[in-house]
């Protein structure tokens, strides 16, 4: 996992978070465009995760594997969990939940990069 990939994915998560936040501010319901945006992010996350696992298996550096894998699993669970739990809230704050989750995804991507490079923990 390189800087470009990690920060790229984090940036994508931030962009979708901003998109979700516009829903929260305008009191707009959770619509298809937002659903597709979160889906694209989730797909990207899954692809990068698989790539990350392959890289973990091949690297001869001392990467904290358990930590790395558990962070990844948290990252890919967050968006679908937020969408499901957010849709259940009928007010504007349903998409607020999605904003929170996507900001967390962005933060976790930066931390994942740190774990991968051995600069964190």
């Amino acid at each position, binding site marked *: 996992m390189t800087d470009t990939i990690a920060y790229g994915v984090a940036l994508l998560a931030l962009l979708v978070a901003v998109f979700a936040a516009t829903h929260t501010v305008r009191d707009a319901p959770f619509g298809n465009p937002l659903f597709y945006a979160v889906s694209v992010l989730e797909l990207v996350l899954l692809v990068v995760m698989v790539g990350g696992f392959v890289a973990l298996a091949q690297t001869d550096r001392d990467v904290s594997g358990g930590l790395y894998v558990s962070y990844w699993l*948290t990252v890919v669970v967050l968006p679908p969990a937020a969408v499901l*739990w957010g849709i259940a809230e009928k*007010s504007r*704050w349903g998409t*607020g939940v999605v904003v*929170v*989750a996507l900001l967390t995804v962005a*933060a976790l991507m930066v931390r994942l990069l740190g774990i991968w490079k051995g600069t964190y923990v």
Partner: protein
Amino acid sequence: MSEHASSEDAAAGRTSTGPGRALVAVYAVFAIAATARSVYQLVVKADEAPVAYALSALAGVVYVLATYALATDRHRLAVGAVLFELVGVLGVGLLTLLDGGLFPDATVWSDFGAGYGYVPLVLPFVGLWWLHRTRGPA
């Protein structure tokens, strides 16, 4: 954003709906973060910094309690947990500034939560504000 919340967002006694929904989400994230971190620290390297890791575990428990209380509209339990959280982040934050040697390894509350974008410092204030708004016959 939250200033624009209409009065119906804050149904009396309900801490889990409206803006509370998003707040519960933030608390859930920190409950997972602090708990997972402490479990990892205690399992992998308990002897390195027992005080810091015990505090991580305590912080985790407090966040789990606060999340549970807010999500299930348990107002008084939520006030207690959030107040404890406030004392924790201020106390640990101050201690890490005064005597870094006490905490050789970081916790969620170290340096007033700087490692988590100071969210742990802001969160209890938001929590108390929300609990104040939703106070009433629970």
